[in-house]
């Protein structure tokens, strides 16, 4: 690398901030004499400042410090540069009335643009003409042919500008009046907004109260639902217990019924056993067998204990499958040769259907003392029977001596 190329490299390093203090001093003294390096240094600085650093800024994610503009305005104030604090929109508080004010601002801006065009011709243009002269870009004015023509033209132009200015001012006054009216509307809208804010706050409070009440009610409903669920569970348990108890009760009732029936049977058996015992041990027992003259199949057996009881068993009085419920078999007693009336001893009851057996037990000693024979008649059922009707069947005489023992 030759000497000049070293300085070229130094130009690049200086432009990128990578040159040392000694190198910069060396480069400065060289550049004073070398226009090529001065140009190169300038080019590298522009590449760095205008392209690479802007690219770096685009790619960076550095956060802009909050309030930087406000701090700058404050510092500018402190250094004697007066600026209105509203110069930066970022320094302003959020404006809730923006939509209302925006119309006014737009109107004012439109008015200003109209006026600015006129003002630029009357005021600004002459002042900027000096700047143009500095830059060497002076416009080529048309040279007037005579001074009179120039004067007339200037007066005419002046008149024209005056008219334009007057028209612009009139328009601006009109727009100012509009702005004032819109300002009044804005104030009215502000008041309405305040009222609405107040109502909104009240509504919000009411809503909060409703929400609170609703929450309480929902809590209470949940409590009640829990209690109801608990009660249902308990009721189900009670229903089950009740069903069990009813089942047990039915079983107990059946058991009682069965036991009662068994007891009745035992009592009946005991009674029969007692009757049989009485018969077996009776001293004056008549056992009489009789046959029916008309129905050779039918027969009877009478156990008669004098002055005490009479048991009449009748067999095959009728076909058990054809027993007519419309008729009953009555047993009658009488004393033969006496005029005493015939006594009814009762109706034979079916004792054993499969055996074709009927039975009557009679134990009235007074009646037994008044009779010495018995017989059976077939009488219609359902009618009061006072005396025997129809043929006498299975007649037995009891007036003989006891044949047992």
């Amino acid at each position: 690398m030759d000497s000049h190329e070293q300085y070229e490299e130094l130009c690049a390093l200086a432009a990128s901030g990578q040159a040392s203090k000694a190198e910069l001093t060396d480069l400065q003294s060289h550049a004073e004499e070398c226009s090529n390096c001065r140009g190169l240094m300038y080019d590298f600085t522009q590449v760095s400042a205008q392209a690479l650093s802007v690219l770096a800024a685009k790619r960076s994610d550095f956060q802009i410090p909050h309030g930087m503009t406000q701090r700058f305005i404050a510092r500018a104030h402190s250094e004697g540069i007066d600026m209105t604090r509203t110069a930066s929109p970022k320094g302003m508080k959020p404006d809730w009335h923006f939509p209302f004010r925006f119309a006014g601002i737009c109107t004012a801006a439109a008015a200003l643009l109209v006026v600015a065009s006129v003002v630029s011709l009357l005021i600004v243009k002459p002042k900027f003409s000096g700047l143009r002269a500095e830059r060497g870009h002076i416009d080529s004015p048309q040279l007037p042919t005579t001074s009179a023509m120039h004067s007339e033209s200037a007066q005419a132009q002046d008149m024209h500008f005056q008219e334009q200015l007057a028209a612009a001012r009139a328009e601006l006054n009109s727009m100012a009046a509009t702005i004032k009216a819109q300002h009044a509307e804005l104030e009215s809208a502000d008041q309405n907004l305040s009222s609405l804010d107040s109502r909104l706050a009240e509504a919000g409070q009411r809503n909060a109260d409703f929400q609170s009440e609703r929450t309480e009610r929902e809590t209470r409903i949940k409590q009640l639902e829990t209690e109801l669920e608990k009660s249902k569970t308990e009721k189900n348990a009670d229903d089950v217990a009740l069903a069990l108890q009813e089942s047990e009760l039915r079983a107990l009732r059946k058991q009682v019924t069965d036991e009662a029936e068994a007891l009745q049977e035992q009592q009946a058996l005991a009674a029969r056993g007692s009757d049989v015992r009485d018969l077996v041990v009776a001293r004056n027992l008549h056992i009489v067998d009789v046959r029916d003259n008309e129905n050779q199949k039918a027969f009877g057996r009478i156990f008669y204990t004098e002055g005490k009881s009479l048991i009449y068993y009748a067999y095959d009085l009728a076909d058990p499958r054809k027993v007519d419920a419309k008729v009953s078999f009555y047993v009658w007693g009488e004393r033969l040769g006496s005029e005493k009336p015939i006594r009814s001893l009762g109706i034979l009851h079916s004792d054993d259907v499969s055996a074709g057996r009927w039975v009557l037990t009679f134990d009235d000693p007074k009646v037994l003392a008044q009779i010495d024979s018995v017989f059976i008649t077939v009488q219609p059922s359902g009618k009061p029977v006072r005396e025997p009707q129809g043929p006498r069947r299975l007649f037995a005489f009891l007036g003989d001596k006891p044949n047992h023992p």
Partner: protein
Amino acid sequence: MDISDCALEKLICSPSLLRTLSDAQLMAALRKGCNDALAVLFERHSALVFRIARSIVRDDGEAEETVQRVFLDVFRAAKQFNPGRASFKTWLLQYAYHRSFNRREHLHVNGFYSSDELDELASGELFYGSLPAQEVLCLVEQVLSILDPRQRKVIELTYFEGWTAEEIAGQTGDSASSVRHNLYRGLAKLRSVLLETQRVQERATAVSKIEVKGMPLGFSRTV
């Protein structure tokens, strides 16, 4: 309500109207004594200046201090600004870049970039002419992508991360002198591409002007 000339000037200097003006118009307003124009310029460009300063000084507070100093100096040198030579943004970035390096201690002590340079910059022009800024950025990105990887890395670490040559050498394992040479070669390539593009653009513009001039009446062409 009657509007006086004084009131008219106040209205022109109102913040809402100022924000509709171009940078050059704002500088003109600033020279006429409308200080609020400075606030609008600050609002418009301070973020970019801050990011540039931040990548160089690598400290938020130092970067904000640099931003404030840049715009205060812009206010004081407003009369030196010549919109016919360079745009306000070009002028501002050049100065912001110098200012940021001045915040680095050794440059500050050395005074390599004097604060008076703002006046000199006011008359400076871009060496690559009037290429649109966005086009220049695209071009630089394209050149970066085709650079030798070592050159590209050195440029990125220098400009995007704010590293010194020694820091880059420590990170890449190259010597500091190699890093510096790569930086030089990369910047030289960028400069030559921009110059060549500018030349091509100028030739194309000249040809278009000739063609338009030679067209029959009644025809027009966008140049």
